């Protein structure tokens, strides 16, 4: 890039030099011709050739000086004056280091903050996905009657794939909640590998080029074929980057799988922002292996992706899917009634959750830049006042307005250029500091902003734009210095225009600062409300960890349950452990499942309708350990085994929704026609399972031993008085003592889980708060500058007033009332703007009214207090003026 630029520059310079050399030759020829003609004339007059030549030269004068003249003039006059302006501007900056530091510092902060936020946006929103022609990749979803997009049933996926013509390929991957997981065998310590179950078309839809080996063949994508593709990280970390790995067998869950390929290092997939990060990528990929004879249409568990055929638009594909969806709904009304097919571009899907917050932050930081611009404009105006005489003299000496404007603009652009460069450094520092704190769904932004051409271009453009923007301010008044008016008079005219402009700038700054303060206030209130949501459990003092039981040693429910019971018993006896339990899905853990159910004695539901509830296998001790309160009846006991009567515990939402005031305890329900009846034995509190801002849903808990497939990867929840470190050691020691082939991972405290679930709102609130603080400071500096200028200008007036008997308090009131007028105007405009802003960010607020009265009152009060304090400094100076000194001054 830089080398290319350098070559280009050399070529331009070369061309210029070449043309210049040609012109120089021509000029010399022309002069020489002239001299020869003169000499010829002398010769004709009878002079000897030598004398004639000398006389001609004398008459012509120095050719060397002439050539020098030509060279001086040949330099493009614009370039030449630009250079002079730059030199002059640099000298002016060096002469006013205070001004230069203030202006450049303000710009660096403004531009730096913008660059930092834009680099996050660029990486998350604008960077193309790492696949060939990523725009043509779409995700396909089952759209339910209420408009929500859900995972796809296997049979539907197969029908879509086989009947659509808009796509060059369609692939499926099992959603994370249903993904396989394996214990990697053949090593000293058991480790768990997350599986990715994909159809053979999956990688070809994405256009993956394998690092080693190949994709699954269609004939490998069927039950009973044991082949695997390794992720780059697995290949490197677990198999020592063995380049001959393909064709070799690895042991997954004690079964040999043949490795057919290794994915490239940068490969990532996810159909949501939080999934699209290296941390949540599968370690090993295996074929989906659909059995064509047993395709389910009821279990919605596939993520489906497809690649549009070149030339087919999304709308056309969507139209075709509409027809297919309609056919399927008619053919399978039981399962597909009110379900249609939705196609969403993959990139759009990935960024859907973060687009709003990021645009909001970009808008906010843009406002900060506006305030910074206004500040620099104000600084330039003060300086313009000081330089009025200089400008007037230059006009009197014949400088054109254009020439003056050019010089002033050069100075502002130079400032902006230096500010922009410094801003880039600020952005580097900020992004480096932010990187570890980025919420998971923004982690794509962790890359450095430098090296991203979009970011560099953005910084250049905003630097230029700000340079022009604030550079124009002093010109507004400078126009008035015209030749017709006397020097002194024109100075005053410009001064008046400038004063108005400065007041307007101060008002605008205050208005913008109010908007930012209110925005930050609303966000903070929303975050506070979110953090104060009672999650439905007690997050303190809980350690959680995921266990993986190797299937060959624990082939059936009996074995698994026996181990689990022993583990819980052992843990319960450990000192420091208050209670322990197991669950398949952890609140705020991101994994989830639901099931339909029927209540005994109720009339059958119409075809295609069913009662849904969240499906949560849990062990005895789970409710006590995680702190979900039992409202009625009892929780699970160790005795609730497969041989005992089948039972279930429901939550309050489920009781409310399906029993409507009646006592659910003792009622029986089943999860399907063949499922045994389960008696409701207890009602527990609701849990915010999907997120603190999410609604609570009907939930039914089943004993681990009585659920469909006892999970071989349950999560253990331990309530303990120990600190997390010792608790982790304790847990590991217990497990190792029992069975060292069991893998443990995802060890975290429940507080970490909760905190992680609000990472994004916290991130945007903290950033916005920082911006509004910056805005507050800058706006205060702005009003300080304006009031200071006012006091300096009216010093004589104040002196006269005080010598005529005005008291200090009166003068103080005079100045402060002026400040209050500006602050009042700005506050009013800011409040009007905030009403508009509140409407925009409404969607990002949780349990907070967009026109929250507290925020709308507190922000202006805070700003008014700070701004008045800033105005007090110059105001008090006005009262300390010594009349004699001030009056003698002029």
């Amino acid at each position, binding site marked *: 890039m830089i080398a290319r630029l350098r070559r280009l520059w050399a070529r331009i310079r070369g061309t210029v030099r070449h043309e210049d050399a040609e012109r120089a030759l021509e000029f010399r020829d022309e002069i020489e011709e002239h001299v020869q003609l003169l000499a010829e004339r002398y010769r004709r007059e009878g002079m000897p050739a030598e004398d004639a030549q000398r006389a001609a030269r004398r008459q012509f004068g120095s050719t060397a000086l002439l050539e020098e003249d030509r060279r*001086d003039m040949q330099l493009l006059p614009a370039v030449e004056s630009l250079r002079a302006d730059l030199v002059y501007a640099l000298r002016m900056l060096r002469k006013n280091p205070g001004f230069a530091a203030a202006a450049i510092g303000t710009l660096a902060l403004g531009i730096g903050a913008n660059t930092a936020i834009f680099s996050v946006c660029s990486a998350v929103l604008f960077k193309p996905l790492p696949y060939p022609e990523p725009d043509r990749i779409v995700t396909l979803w089952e759209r339910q009657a209420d408009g929500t997009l859900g995972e796809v049933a296997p049979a539907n996926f197969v029908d879509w794939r086989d009947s659509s013509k808009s796509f060059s390929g369609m692939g499926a991957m099992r959603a994370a909640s249903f993904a396989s997981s394996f214990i990697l065998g053949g090593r000293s310590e058991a480790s768990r590998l997350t599986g990715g179950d994909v159809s053979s078309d999956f990688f070809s839809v994405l256009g993956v080029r394998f690092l080693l080996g190949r994709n699954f063949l269609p004939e490998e994508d069927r039950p009973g074929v044991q082949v695997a593709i390794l992720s780059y990280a697995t290949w490197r970390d677990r198999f020592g980057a063995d380049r001959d790995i393909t064709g070799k067998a690895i042991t997954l869950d004690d079964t040999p799988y043949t490795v057919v390929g290794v994915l490239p290092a940068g490969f990532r997939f996810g159909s949501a922002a939080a999934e699209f990060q290296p941390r949540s990528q599968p370690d090993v990929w295996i074929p989906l292996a659909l059995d064509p004879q047993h395709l389910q249409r009821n279990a919605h568990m596939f993520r489906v992706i497809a690649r549009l055929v070149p030339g087919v638009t999304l709308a056309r594909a969507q139209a075709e899917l509409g027809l297919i969806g309609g056919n399927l709904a008619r053919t399978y009304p039981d399962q597909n009634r009110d379900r249609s097919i939705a196609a969403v571009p993959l990139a759009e899907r990935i960024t859907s959750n973060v687009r709003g917050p990021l645009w909001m932050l970009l808008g906010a930081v843009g406002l900060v830049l506006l305030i910074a611009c206004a500040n620099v404009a104000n600084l330039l105006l003060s300086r313009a006042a000081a330089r009025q005489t200089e400008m007037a003299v230059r006009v009197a000496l014949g400088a054109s307005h254009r020439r003056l404007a050019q010089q002033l603009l050069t100075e502002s652009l130079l400032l902006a250029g230096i500010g922009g460069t410094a801003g880039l450094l600020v952005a580097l520092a900020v992004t480096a500091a932010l990187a570890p704190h980025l919420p998971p769904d923004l982690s794509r932004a962790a890359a450095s902003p430098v090296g991203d051409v979009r970011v560099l271009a953005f910084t250049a453009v905003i630097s230029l734009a700000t340079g022009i923007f604030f550079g124009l301010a002093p010109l507004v008044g400078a126009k008035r210095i015209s030749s017709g008016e006397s020097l002194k008079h024109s100075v005053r005219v410009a001064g008046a225009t400038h004063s108005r402009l400065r007041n307007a700038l101060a008002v605008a700054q205050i208005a913008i600062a109010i908007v930012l303060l209110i925005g930050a206030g609303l966000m903070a209130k929303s975050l506070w409300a979110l953090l104060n949501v009672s999650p439905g459990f007690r997050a303190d003092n809980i350690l959680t960890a995921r266990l993986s039981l190797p299937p060959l040693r624990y082939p059936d429910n009996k074995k698994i349950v026996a181990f689990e019971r022993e583990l819980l018993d052992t843990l319960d006896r450990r000192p420091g452990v208050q209670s322990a339990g197991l669950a398949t899905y952890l609140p705020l853990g991101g994994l989830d499942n639901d099931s339909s159910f029927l209540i005994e004695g109720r009339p059958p539901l119409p075809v295609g309708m069913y009662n849904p509830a969240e499906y949560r296998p849990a062990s005895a001790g789970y409710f006590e350990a995680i702190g979900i309160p039992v409202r009625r009846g009892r929780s699970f006991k160790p005795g609730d085994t497969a041989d005992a009567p089948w039972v279930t515990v429901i939550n309050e939402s489920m009781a409310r929704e399906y029993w409507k005031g009646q006592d659910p305890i003792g009622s029986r329900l089943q999860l399907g026609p063949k499922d045994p009846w389960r008696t409701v034995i207890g009602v527990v509190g609701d849990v915010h399972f999907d997120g603190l801002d999410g609604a609570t849903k009907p939930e039914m808990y089943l004993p681990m031993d009585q659920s469909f497939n006892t999970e071989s990867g349950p999560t253990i929840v331990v309530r303990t008085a120990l600190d997390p470190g010792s608790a982790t050691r304790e847990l590991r020691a217990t497990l190792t003592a029992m069975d060292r082939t069991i893998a443990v991972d995802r060890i975290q405290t429940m507080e970490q889980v909760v905190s992680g679930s609000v990472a994004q709102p916290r991130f945007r609130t903290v950033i916005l708060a920082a911006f509004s603080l910056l805005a507050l400071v800058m706006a205060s500096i702005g009003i300080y500058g304006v009031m200071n200028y006012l006091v300096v200008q009216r010093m004589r007036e104040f002196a006269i007033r005080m010598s005529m008997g005005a008291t200090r308090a009166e003068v103080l009131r005079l100045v402060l009332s002026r400040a209050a007028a500006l602050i009042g105007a700005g506050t009013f405009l800011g409040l009007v703007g905030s009403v508009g802003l509140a409407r925009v960010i409404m969607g990002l607020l949780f349990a907070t009214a967009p026109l929250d009265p507290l925020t709308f009152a507190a922000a202006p009060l805070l700003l008014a207090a700070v701004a008045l304090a800033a105005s007090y400094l110059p105001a008090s100076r006005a009262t300390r003026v010594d009349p004699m000194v001030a009056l003698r001054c002029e």
Partner: protein
Amino acid sequence: MSKGRVDDRRKSEVLQGTLDLMILKTLQAIGPLHGFGIARRLEQLSEEVLRLNEGTVYTSLLRLQQKRWIVAEWGASENNRKAKFYSITRSGLKQLARETDDWERISGVIGRVLRLAAEKP
């Protein structure tokens, strides 16, 4: 710009201003002409005053070109040699009219002042 030459320049600046004016007038009166021809015409008119430093004509020509008051074009001279021909442009004509007015006014004023000074003693 080297410092040593600034003073030399000063001296000739007045002359150069008038030289520019004279060249513009010449081109307006006669039409396209090459540098040598311009010099000869000025020599004729100024009665040898411009005898020294004919090269300054070229400085003027360069300056006038830069201001786009004249343009240059390659052509053949009377004796069929390649030569650069200068001609006045529309903006050059305007400038000429302006400067002629100025000149007449100023020379009138200066003439009156000088006469006044001569009458006084």
